[in-house]
């Protein structure tokens, strides 16, 4: 495969040797050569202004100083400081785990926090929690970084500077004197599902009967709420059971990565897609996913049949499908889709009545939600694959309306005291709701937040808020089951308070938040409360708290008529894949995490279809001016394959101006053009090139690997059944590296590309586990990101509707590792268990290994990336070396976890059992696509997976004998549609 093309430039028409040389040294030719041969270094070369003379100087100095990099000063004499009284359960050196729950948008995600001597170092999913099942998403994994953020708000502040809670409370009491009975006292919270919080707010509203409570989330579920009102006249939450579903139709709903229940949904959905021929022997079967989508998402990438529409057209399609299913969807509409698509999907759904799911997206209109309810009911899915439960949020409202009402009251001067608990509404309010301006009209305002953000800047008081890892509480999950929020550590900054504590204090309740939460659940306990409480705290989940399914009757409301199709340019607003609504803008891990599909870091963009880019003469990085409804914003273009034409997607959360740490001023603020009347998509927009350009830093811009076009093997289910051995398997060739025997353990990994949804949770999990640095936008631009496991994305087929594949790539742990041969100092060597070990203290930084790695998985510390902020030191995993500048690093298969398991097993006089060692990536993976184990254990899961016919090694012809192999991507398209399309 690697017939490295080293063509001499321009030899054909060369006159003589001289001509040839001058050609080679001409800028363009040289760059072309450089780009081809040394892609990773080309960017650096182009950027540097190095002439030959300086180059020689630098190289000379490098040569002279070689080896100095290995010299580190001796550690100072350290003291040993034991406890006065060792806390319960603490054994120095052994971690302790606590179950808790991460709140996001009012929904809880079960978590387990690892602590070392009291310091939280890592967060993972909670196996007992229904939304997690032990897996996690990128937000959960990265949330621990926010706890230790060096810019956190640590003290009560107002315009005069540092203050105290006493000063705030007395000022508040004075202000409340102007608000008899709470007339003029307004509370603005984020979405609330916590029973204890609800009880405290109720108590507050009882103490101040005229006080008002408003809620706002910029990424809200207004459509689902209004859709349920339309369908049933009452709010319900919908829970989907993908494990029961054979056919799924997603109506612009990215249920795999961006819903409150996504981690669970992804697991359940993928459990219906794991084709195991060697194990079952029977003819394999798979579920089928039809995805209608506007902006490309993981769900569309995984879908068996995808239909690309503009966001506004999805409702029309939903009506058409409804009609084909015999559900009243209003008048029949034609749209820019193949009518066969609708009939084929409807037929498939009907053939699987009772075992199908129609799932609408948060970003679709209430009508789509109402239609989905009606279609699921008509198909008999309600009660089997779909259940309706009472609303999870304590007080469900349409949040945009709620914020509008509050802002109106503020403008009218009705608001005397405004307490904003969490959130950042001054930044995230829709463009036509001038919350920030109205704040000026409020005589007393305070903002409780972790960072001093845009809202804090405009409020009179900034109050420090605890991180969820520091507070007591409770919260409901997507399915309504309750779990506890338990702090493994007290507040890092003693002045910080939780929203619950603040409200309780205001209501005159002087119990601690722990007592409040306990009191809430005292009534729920069956039998002995103390054991119930301890069990709930241990598991994190409150047993049996999931609500009964509702049986609600359709209200029979007529749906509003379909709006005529708008042929103008449509702007689609979406939460950002990594920093969401802006709440994670300060989180360096999430900022640097490549966004699924675009691989963009540190920025947001205006994504458009390739055809549109060509038509408008735009290319990546061109800055355009987007105008919606008279408001404009400047945004850089990203040409995204599979994006609908005549539409542009912008993501929320960027353009922060305060309290976003390193993310401050990154990207542009899409809220500035987001209308309140059409939160998610708006027609009639205009886009104009400005002539400016902007650098977008993406990963995977340059080829990491030679011959990467063969990296992903793909087949449809029927092709696979016809020819199970379809993957490319090279013939065994002689290798100069001698065979080695592995007598004890032989570690290996299998990655199922069918199951990979490209969510990037593995990357963050690895970053957290292995103390991996973030490097910043500038370094990502020159391909110096440090992630040990990356998720590559490949497109195949036409640009406007390509097939999309994801491929997680960690170190392959080659048995015949090319990197090992070239290291001059034996810093990378093979272990007796087959690991390709990296010895940091031997490494002198020649980078030969990385040049010789065909998979491009090695990462070099070009600079001293270790964050100097002292507070971050406490977060590091003490079991993994923090690498210094000048040292190569790469995936170790989480060797620290292997060591730990080996020592434990050894202590107990046994071998390590299958599943006992789980690398961080495999533990985090929502779909369990990554399986790790001992290849010497014939019964291990990984051995079974590697026996499947679709198992293959990436770049197998390189003859590196990698320990990590892949299961080919198999999908199950509706043949009726593929044949009609082609």
């Amino acid at each position: 495969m690697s017939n490295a093309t080293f063509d001499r430039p321009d030899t054909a028409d060369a006159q003589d040797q001289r001509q040839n040389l001058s050609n080679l040294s001409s800028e363009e030719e040289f760059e072309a050569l450089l780009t081809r041969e040394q892609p990773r270094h080309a960017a650096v070369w182009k950027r540097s202004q190095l002439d030959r003379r300086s180059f020689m100087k630098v190289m000379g100095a490098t040569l002279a100083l070689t080896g100095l990099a290995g010299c580190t000063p001796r550690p100072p004499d350290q003291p040993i400081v034991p406890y006065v009284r060792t806390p319960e359960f603490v054994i120095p050196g052994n971690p302790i785990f606590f179950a808790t729950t991460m709140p996001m948008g009012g929904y809880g995600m079960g978590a387990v926090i690892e602590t070392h001597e009291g310091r939280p170092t890592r967060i993972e999913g909670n196996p007992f929690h229904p939304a997690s099942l032990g897996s996690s998403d990128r937000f959960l994994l990265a949330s621990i970084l926010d706890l230790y953020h060096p810019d956190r708000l640590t003290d009560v502040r107002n315009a005069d500077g540092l203050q105290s809670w006493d000063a705030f409370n007395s000022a508040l009491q004075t202000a409340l004197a102007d608000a008899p009975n709470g007339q003029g006292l307004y509370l603005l919270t984020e979405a609330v599902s916590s029973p204890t919080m609800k009880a405290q707010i109720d108590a507050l509203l009882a103490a101040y009967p005229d006080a008002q409570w408003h809620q706002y989330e910029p990424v809200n579920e207004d459509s689902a709420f209004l859709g349920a009102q339309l369908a049933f006249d009452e709010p319900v939450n919908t829970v989907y059971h993908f494990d029961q579903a054979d056919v799924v139709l997603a109506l612009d709903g990215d249920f795999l990565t961006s819903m409150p229940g996504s981690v669970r949904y992804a697991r359940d959905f993928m459990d219906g897609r794991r084709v195991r021929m060697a194990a079952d022997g029977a003819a394999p079967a798979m579920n089928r996913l039809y995805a209608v989508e506007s902006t490309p998402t993981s769900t569309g990438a995984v879908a068996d049949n995808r239909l690309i529409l503009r966001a506004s057209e999805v409702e029309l399609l939903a009506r058409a499908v409804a009609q084909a299913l015999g559900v009243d969807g209003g008048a029949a509409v034609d749209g820019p889709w193949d009518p066969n698509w609708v009939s084929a999907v409807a037929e498939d759904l009907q053939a699987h009545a009772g075992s199908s799911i129609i799932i609408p997206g948060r970003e679709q209109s209430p009508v789509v939600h109402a239609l989905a309810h009606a279609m699921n009911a008509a198909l008999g899915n309600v009660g089997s694959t779909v259940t309706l439960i009472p609303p999870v949020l304590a007080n469900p409202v349409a949040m945009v309306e709620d914020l509008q009402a509050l802002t109106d009251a503020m403008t009218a001067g009705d608001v005397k005291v405004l307490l904003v608990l969490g959130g950042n509404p001054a930044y995230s309010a829709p463009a036509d709701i001038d919350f920030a301006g109205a704040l000026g009209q409020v005589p007393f305002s305070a903002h409780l937040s972790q960072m001093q953000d845009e809202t804090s800047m405009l409020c009179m008081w900034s109050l420090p808020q605890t991180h969820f890892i520091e507070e007591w509480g409770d919260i409901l999950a997507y399915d309504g089951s309750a779990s506890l929020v338990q702090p493994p550590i007290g507040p890092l900054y003693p002045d910080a308070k939780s929203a619950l504590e603040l409200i309780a204090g205001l209501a005159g309740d002087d119990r601690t938040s722990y007592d409040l939460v306990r009191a809430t659940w005292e009534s729920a306990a069956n039998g002995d409360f103390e054991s119930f409480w301890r069990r709930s705290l241990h598991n994190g989940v409150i047993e049996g708290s999931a609500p009964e399914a509702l049986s609600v009757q359709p209200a029979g409301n007529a749906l509003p008529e379909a709006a005529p199709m708008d042929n103008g340019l449509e702007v689609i607003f979406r939460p950002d894949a990594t920093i969401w609504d802006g709440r994670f803008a300060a989180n360096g891990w999430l900022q640097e995490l490549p966004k699924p599909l675009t691989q963009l870091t540190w920025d947001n963009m205006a994504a458009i279809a390739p055809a549109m880019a060509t038509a408008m003469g735009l290319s990546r990085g061109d800055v355009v001016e987007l105008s919606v409804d008279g408001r404009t914003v400047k945004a850089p273009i990203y040409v995204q394959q599979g994006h609908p034409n005549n539409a542009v997607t912008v993501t929320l959360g960027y353009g922060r101006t305060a309290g976003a740490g390193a993310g401050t001023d990154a990207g542009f603020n899409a809220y500035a053009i987001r209308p309140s009347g059409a939160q998610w998509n708006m027609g009639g927009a205009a886009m104009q090139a400005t002539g400016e350009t902007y650098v977008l830093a993406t990963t995977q811009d340059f080829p990491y690997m030679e011959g990467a076009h063969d990296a992903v093997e793909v087949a449809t289910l029927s092709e696979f059944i016809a020819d199970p051995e379809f993957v490319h398997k090279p013939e065994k060739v002689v290798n100069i590296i001698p065979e080695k025997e592995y007598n004890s353990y032989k570690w290996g990994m299998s990655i199922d590309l069918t199951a990979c949804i490209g969510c990037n949770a593995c990357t963050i999990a690895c970053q957290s586990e292995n103390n991996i640095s973030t490097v910043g936008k500038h370094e990502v631009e020159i391909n110096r990101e440090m992630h040990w496991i990356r998720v590559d994305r490949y497109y195949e087929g036409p640009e406007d509707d390509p097939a999309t594949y994801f491929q997680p790539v960690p170190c392959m742990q080659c048995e015949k590792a090319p990197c090992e041969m070239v290291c001059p100092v034996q810093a990378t060597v093979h272990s007796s268990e087959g690991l390709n070990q990296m010895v940091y203290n031997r490494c002198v930084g020649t980078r030969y290994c990385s040049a010789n790695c065909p998979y491009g998985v090695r990462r070099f510390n070009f600079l001293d990336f270790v964050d100097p902020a002292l507070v971050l030191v406490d977060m590091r995993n003490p079991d993994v070396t923090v690498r210094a500048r000048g040292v190569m690093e790469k995936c170790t298969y989480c060797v620290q976890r292997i060591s730990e398991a080996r020592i434990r097993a050894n202590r107990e006089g046994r071998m390590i059992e299958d599943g006992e060692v789980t690398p961080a990536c495999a533990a985090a993976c929502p779909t369990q696509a990554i399986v790790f184990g001992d290849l010497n254990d014939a019964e291990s899961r990984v051995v079974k997976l590697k026996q499947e016919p679709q198992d293959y090694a990436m770049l197998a012809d390189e003859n590196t004998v990698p320990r990590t192999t892949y299961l080919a991507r198999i999908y199950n398209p509706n043949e009726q549609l593929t044949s009609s399309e082609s």
Partner: protein
Amino acid sequence: MSQQLFKPGANNLAKVSILAGGLITALVLGFILVTVRSPFTKAPVGIPVPQPVRFSHELHAGTLNVDCRYCHSSAEVSPYGGIPDTHTCMSCHSQIATYSELLEPVRNSYASDERLVWNRVHAVGQYVYFNHSAHLNNGIGCETCHGRIDQMPIVWRNETMTMRWCLDCHFEPEKYIRPLDEVYTMGWTPPIPQSELGPQLVAEYDIHKDGLTDCAVCHR
């Protein structure tokens, strides 16, 4: 012919100085390397380290024969041997020698909740992840690394604790291994010659010698 600037001898001088220059550089570099790596300059072996409390292992572990694990309780189950907390000291010393002058810092710590600050005696390199439990559960005695603690009034480091010293045993554990029930014994002598007992125990405890020299065993 113009005047020669250099006399004929200058040639030899040049040759000698080139040679001498190279030689001196090599010597200096060699000296530095030897010095840096020498256990004598690196490890303070045999030097008692003063501690805030004049605790005597000779008395406690020797004369009184207190089990190592009474105080170093995490050694068997965790990477760290564990330094006892003040409460562990006081569990005996609230009964025995309650008013001893030597115990004043301990009593102060107990009363004021201020931690005692001990001085580290044993340390391995910064990149090393040493695990006490892995050694104790595989028949490496305390004495092997820490020496005759029961004879030290004030503890000193008995071994260099350099990588070479570690590897001596990781290459040939049979030279040092002892039965599991003798791990905490001080002054143990093998009942049969170590050259016979060692290989037996290595086999019995299922110690994979080739794995012991994997880099990742200690470095990660």
